[in-house]
């Protein structure tokens, strides 16, 4: 590996090496807050480097790109992990997390995700995906005093392992069909009519199953609510945002390259998008647990994002990135609110427990309400423009049917997004005073809130950025 290659992968190196260092030194110096802070700084610096430094090489080792797109993704995932660390300060104290391990695992996840989004070959894709999936196995079950955490960890582990099998098999089949792992050539394998094409398609089928698991498309979504419910809230936040976003961003170029030849695949995606949107929406309706509701909501949003994937090209890509960022702000913020309401024994997630909380903790409740409304796509919150861009792209590229179903789903979805708001503000007070929340939590929530609001009023900067990275 040349120096230039190392330099090109500097952000990922910062994350990975930093993670290793934190893990090692963390064992000796058991200061939780210190390591969280260090991790935070590392993640931020990785984001800074990725954001500001031009990479000398366009592609490293035939596996990872250093395009603007890849750097953009790196920045976003690093920031998500930084945010996770920020929100975990009090939470980690509450549950006596090992600071070094927790931090380093999260940093590893960031490295994995950013590699995944940067992948240009199937090997790179596999490695990046597995890197953060492995980390998440641990993080989900990180709370050792919680049965549910263990159950969630188990569930994620089993499905993750099976999905890994599918992913690997799919990659292997595609390789068998095309003779290359590199996206461009690998796709050529199914583009040419021939004996090997069915093998390639079978590979794609496996791949889709794996992706379906990762971004929880129906019918591969069933684990999602259980895992989100059981995992520590900050980790659920990562699961719902970055972990899914990284997969989507990795597949976006893949599908775009597929072009016309992937009609079969697009058909399947079309079907998956529809059932994901509808099933997710309806399943979310009767939920009475905030985290489970958010899980189903993430399912629905993945359905929307599939529309963007289907549209493909710069239209679809821009819509996807824009949507993803805004969705992440809102969803992560919502999990952030759950985190900040957490007590030593439990997280406040049942609607019953949230009743009338809006008047005891008005600021966090209002912020949560804003996140819900943004997810529902109600202006003047950013979620509106996200959906707007998505549906516009869909209509523009002849996916009117999907757009209409999406609109219908988002209409029904309003009901379950309103329910937490109703519980918080419109029911009799039954809640007791909770922890007032720490400064770091407030900082993060305020950040998400301001972003949601500002992007809802003036989304132009983000749009320009998206256009810049996805010409």
């Amino acid at each position, binding site marked *: 590996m040349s120096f230039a290659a190392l330099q090109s992968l500097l952000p990922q190196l910062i994350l990975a090496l930093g993670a290793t260092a934190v893990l090692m030194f963390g064992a000796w110096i058991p200061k939780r807050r210190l390591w969280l802070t260090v991790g935070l700084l590392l993640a931020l610096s990785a984001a800074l480097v990725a954001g500001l430094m031009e990479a000398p090489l366009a592609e490293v080792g035939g596996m990872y790109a250093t395009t603007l797109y890849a750097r953009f993704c790196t920045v976003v995932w690093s920031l998500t992990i930084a945010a996770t660390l920020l929100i975990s300060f009090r939470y980690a104290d509450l549950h006596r997390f090992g600071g070094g391990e927790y931090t380093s695992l999260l940093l590893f996840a960031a490295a994995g995700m950013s590699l995944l989004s940067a992948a240009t070959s199937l090997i790179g894709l596999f490695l990046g995906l597995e890197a953060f999936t492995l980390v998440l196995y641990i993080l989900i079950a990180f709370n050792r005093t919680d049965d549910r955490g263990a159950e969630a960890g188990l569930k994620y582990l089993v499905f993750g392992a099976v999905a890994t099998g599918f992913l690997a098999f799919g990659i292997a089949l595609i390789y068998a069909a095309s003779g290359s792992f590199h996206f461009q050539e690998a796709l050529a394998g199914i583009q040419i009519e021939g004996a090997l094409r069915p093998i390639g398609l079978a590979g794609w089928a496996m791949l889709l199953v794996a992706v379906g698991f990762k971004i929880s498309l129906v019918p591969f979504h069933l684990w999602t609510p259980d895992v989100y419910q059981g995992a520590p809230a900050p980790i659920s936040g990562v699961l719902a945002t970055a972990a899914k976003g990284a997969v989507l961003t990795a597949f976006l170029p893949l599908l775009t390259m597929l072009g016309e030849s992937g009609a079969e695949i697009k058909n399947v995606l079309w079907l998956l998008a529809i059932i994901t949107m509808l099933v997710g929406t309806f399943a979310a309706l009767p939920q009475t647990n905030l985290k489970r509701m958010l899980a189903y909501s993430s399912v629905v949003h993945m359905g929307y994002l599939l529309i963007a994937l289907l549209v493909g090209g710069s239209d679809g890509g821009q819509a996807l990135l824009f949507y993803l960022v805004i969705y992440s702000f809102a969803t992560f913020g919502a999990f952030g609110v759950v985190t900040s309401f957490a007590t030593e024994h439990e997280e406040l997630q049942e609607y019953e427990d949230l009743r009338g909380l809006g008047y005891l903790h*008005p600021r966090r409740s209002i912020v949560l309400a804003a996140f819900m409304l943004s997810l529902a796509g109600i202006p003047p919150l950013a979620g509106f423009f996200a959906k*707007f861009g998505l549906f516009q792209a869909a*209509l523009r590229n002849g996916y009117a049917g999907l757009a209409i179903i999406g609109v219908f789903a988002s209409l029904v979805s309003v009901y379950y997004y309103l329910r937490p708001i109703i519980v918080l503000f419109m029911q009799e007070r039954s809640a007791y005073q909770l922890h007032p929340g720490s400064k770091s939590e407030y900082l993060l929530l305020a950040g998400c809130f301001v972003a949601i609001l500002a992007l809802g009023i003036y989304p132009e900067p983000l749009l320009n950025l998206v256009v810049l990275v996805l010409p």
Partner: protein
Amino acid sequence: MTADSSLQFPLLSLLLWLPILGALLCLLWYKAPAASRWIALGTSTAVFVLSLVAGLYSTGSAGWFLYEDASWIEHFGIRYTLGMDGISLLLIILTAFLQLVAVVISWDQDKFSALFFALILVLGTGIMGVFLALDLILFYLFWELMLIPMFFLIGVWGYKRKVYAAVKFFLFTLAGSLCLLLAVISLHLLHGEQTGVYTFALEALQQTRLSFSQEMLFYLCFMAAFAVKVPIFPFHSWLPDAHTEAPVAASVDLAGLLLKTGVYGMIRFAFPLFPHAAEKSLPVLAVLALIGLFYAAWIAYLQTDIKRIVAYSSISHLGFVLLGLAAWNQTAWEGSLLLMINHGVTTGALFIAIALIHKRTGTREIAKLGGIWKSQPNLAAFFLLFSLASLGLPGLANFSGEILILIGTFSSNAVWAIFAVGGVLFSAAYILRMVQGTIWGPCCEPFDKQDLGGREWLVLIPLAVLVVILGCYPQPLLDSLREPVSFMLRQGGQP
């Protein structure tokens, strides 16, 4: 329209964003309820004054006498375009006035007052934005901006079935709006394909060439949003619940302003953009208007909650307004717009009077009310006055609009007008039943014997004066409407 709009003082923006500023200030001082209500009062007074100032610019001709245009979201082709003509001027003044009334009448609101007043103010921005926006997406944003504050106002400060009402309101209006959104985007894309210019500007989109079926489809989508808001007959079911459960200020805003945004949307957007489809739809519109007119009146006749009676009366009156639109001529349109304003004032006033009665008696059930005149003659007198205006007594507000609508409609289609005249009878039936059950009859012994207090006088007197003036001398309003309305009618390309 005007090129040098950048040189103008941004009066419209100020009008629009001042309430938001006020809302922020309210939230900033959320720990001091007194501060928030004074801020709200100050803001809404300033807005009212500004709206009157805007009236000074009025030229009486058809174009925008105030116009602002700025780049906003280039990526989507969305611009920040505002314009004011005679129609929007009147609606803006009405908005500012009713907002002021809403603030004053909610003065002793002590449950989370900061949030309450902030929401009222934000609602004001939403409504005024709808009346001013000339970019379709900007319009849509303001259209939706009305939703959240109203949802909270009903849901948090409402009465028994508040959550049901709030959610129903939210979902109904959103369902309509999403149709509108899809149509707007499609129209925008179609225009872009034809001309290469991707824009949401109203005037540009009017030039889009559409086949008749496209036009009809878009028109129906637009109308879905507006029909829910107005509300037109089968889409009205959210309204009685929302009106009944809302706190008084929200009821005033709902009946006085929100319903008008639907009609405004039709005449400003749906009709000019899709004139052929509109022309085809007029008979259907008229029939729905008439059905709504009678149906709501009949239902109102049996209601036992006086607030619900007034809620249904709103549907009935809006049926009248709609009929005027369907008649599609100068007199009928002016009548419709005038009736909108009249109805805003009278119904708002009625809701206030009902709220005051409710405050004193603790009930709104006809069976439990009665003889208010004995204990509160002044309040009862105001209630009577507003009720009479609502039933269309000549010389009071609603009549002037109704008669113009009838006259205009008669010349377009006599049968519609004859049916509509019948509707007047039923409005008398339910209004008089309400009046009878409330202020006449044996006494219900309210627990609070106090007649009107100072602040209540302050609200009711201007409303009463307006009710009389709008009935006796509505000519200035009609003058302001004349040119814009005739311009729009010509634009519609109708006979």
